[in-house]
């Protein structure tokens, strides 16, 4: 019983954090989000190079044979950097699904030649306009590997989503992967990103309110601001462990789907609440400047809003927890 990340996991996290800081600064996020850039220059190749894309594929199929615990802090960092590409959908959901199915779409996905998203819920598909393939849920719990489809563009409040209203015919081959597991992976990965977004919003707001003066004092010295931000910090402090714990649960094939599902839903419920609180606190403590399109805070605010609802909002996951508790 040891609830801690290994030094290797911490180093991997730090490496990726630096990589995001290098290759995916706010300007890059903004360019992608505004549609000025089709992709984040050099990022996908670098992620393939360093093994993030292949993390969840077993070694014998060309992957790194890592598990969700190894990847969870990476996805958290993706939220912290507001990485606009479908990294979670590709690395955390599509790759393990394609691997377990032995699909020939796996290899280009590992090398980064292709980008694969997933379509596990009704409604628009993230990056549906950008990707080369889609791992789509069909029927109750079957997955199909879709390579040709029609996508009608839909604009999201968060431009980085590149939403597509996707339609495809029945010719897409079914792949023998577990759709419930895929869905739990997407929920978990989204929860991790929520934590990262919340951390960034908090850091940015602490910095801003320390610099910004009103009435001759730093804004951050007012007790009301202090308590807003303390509550943001508390929300993150007690949501993150549930996310890490759920990563462990998903990484344990022996664990029952019920327990796994409950752990994942607890993580998303807490992470959605944490990022919601972070969005409110960050905007209110910034004041008008935080409300502008020109100022970078909006990149994280919008990411927070969409990820809080993506793959089920807090109440939907609390409902799932309630059912699993038999109440």
């Amino acid at each position, binding site marked *: 019983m040891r609830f801690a990340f290994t030094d290797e996991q911490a180093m991997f996290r730090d490496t990726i954090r630096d990589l995001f800081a290098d290759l995916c600064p706010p300007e890059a996020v903004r360019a992608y989000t505004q549609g000025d850039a089709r992709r984040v220059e050099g990022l996908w190749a670098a992620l393939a190079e360093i093994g993030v894309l292949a993390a969840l594929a077993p070694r014998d199929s060309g992957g790194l044979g890592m598990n969700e615990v190894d990847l969870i802090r990476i996805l958290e960092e993706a939220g912290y950097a507001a990485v606009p590409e479908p990294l979670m959908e590709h690395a955390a959901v599509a790759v393990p699904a394609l691997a377990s199915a032995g699909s020939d779409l796996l290899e280009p996905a590992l090398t980064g030649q292709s980008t694969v998203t997933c379509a596990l819920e009704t409604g628009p598909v993230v990056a549906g306009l950008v990707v080369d393939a889609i791992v789509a849920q069909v029927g109750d719990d079957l997955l199909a590997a879709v390579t040709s489809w029609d996508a009608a563009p839909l*604009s*999201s*409040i968060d431009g980085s989503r590149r939403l597509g209203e996707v339609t495809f015919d029945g010719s897409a081959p079914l792949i023998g992967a577990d759709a419930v597991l895929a869905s739990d992976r997407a929920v978990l990965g989204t929860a991790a990103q929520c934590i990262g977004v919340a951390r960034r919003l908090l850091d940015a707001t602490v910095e801003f309110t320390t610099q910004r003066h009103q009435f001759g004092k730093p804004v951050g010295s007012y007790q009301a601001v202090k308590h807003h931000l303390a509550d943001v910090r508390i929300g993150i402090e007690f949501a993150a462990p549930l996310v890490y714990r759920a990563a462990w649960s998903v990484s344990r094939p022996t664990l029952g789907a019920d327990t796994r599902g409950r752990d994942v839903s607890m993580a998303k419920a807490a992470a959605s609440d944490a990022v919601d609180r972070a969005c409110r606190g960050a905007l209110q403590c910034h004041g*008008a400047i935080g409300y502008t399109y020109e100022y970078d805070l909006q990149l994280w605010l919008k990411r927070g809003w969409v990820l809080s609802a993506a793959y089920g909002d807090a109440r939907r996951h609390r409902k799932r927890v309630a059912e699993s508790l038999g109440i």
Partner: protein
Amino acid sequence: MNLDPEPRHVEFRHECREWLNTHKPTVPIASMDTLEGFEEHRRWERVLFDGGWSVPAWPTRYGGRDCDLIEWLIYEEEYWGSGAPGRVAANGLSLLAPTIFNFGTSRQQDLFLPPMASGEHIWAQGWSEPDAGSDLAAIKTTAIRDGDHYVVNGQKTWCSRGAFADWIFCLVRTDSDSRRHDGLTYLLVPADTEGLERRTIGRLDGVPGFAELFFNDCRVSVDNVVGGEGRGWKVAMATAGSERGLSLRSPGRFMAAAERLTAMVRDMVDRGEAVDPTLRDEVANIWIRTQAYRWQTYLLAAGLMDGAEIGPEASLGKVFWSELDLELHATALRLLGETAEVANGNDWLDGYVFALAGPIYAGTNEIQRNIVAERVLGLPRR
């Protein structure tokens, strides 16, 4: 106490509703934050004015109907309930007009009120500066007397409608040696004044919701001072009261939104869609709070009509309506679920982005709560 509407009120409500249903644009018009939409909204102001429904609470000689407060509240309920366009003239009508009525010379009243009512002059507010937000008294923009003009230099920001407005009502420092609340003057500046540059600022979703104004040696006539040189703070605070209070955000606006919200849930129920009971509870709570704001306002109105003044109590309302508006729209987005993020034709999302500014503008809600604590409850300042 008598809550039965008087016959004249029933008639007034009916006339107002009829007129709006007959004259309101049949197709939605473009956003007032685009040049095209701004002018469409200006034309709508003119239609309202010609129909006598632009400024019903004003005296008839300025194009109004001498409505009393109750009638004005009914008008607001009908206006927002009708789904008519937003008022591009709102800043002038609710923030500047009370000031001109209270502090303006009769010449200023004759000069500025009629074109404000007709939409000929659309006004923007020029108060905030990069370093003077919540701390308004930190204003740096100077207006130095030179003959019968002031020479204005400085920067204003967060000016709603500022991009296309015809006039700006500003707070400037006419005594450059003065500090804080002293030496400020309330000055009306034509937007086409030489040396005045504007730059739009996008709100969260990129819509150019405000402008920054840069004053470079702008010469403004001394006749455009309201309330006297150096008395700007006192004059402005009178407006701030109305900004927080009734005139900016009347209950009618939120009652209409709450109606749309409950209608959305009813439609979901009719379509046989599952509505999360916790959201049903939230919607009921929103509806109750909207009614609470309505009846608190009618209570307040009766007091005002008996001669009471609206003082720091205005801060109670500002906190309440701004947080109600935010939760109302957040609830709507929760009802939409994962498609809430889709911007295409999503009025709730647009309304949410707008509502997010509510707890910030017109004095942050933190400032408002301080005012409630210190000036309504009498808690010690320090």
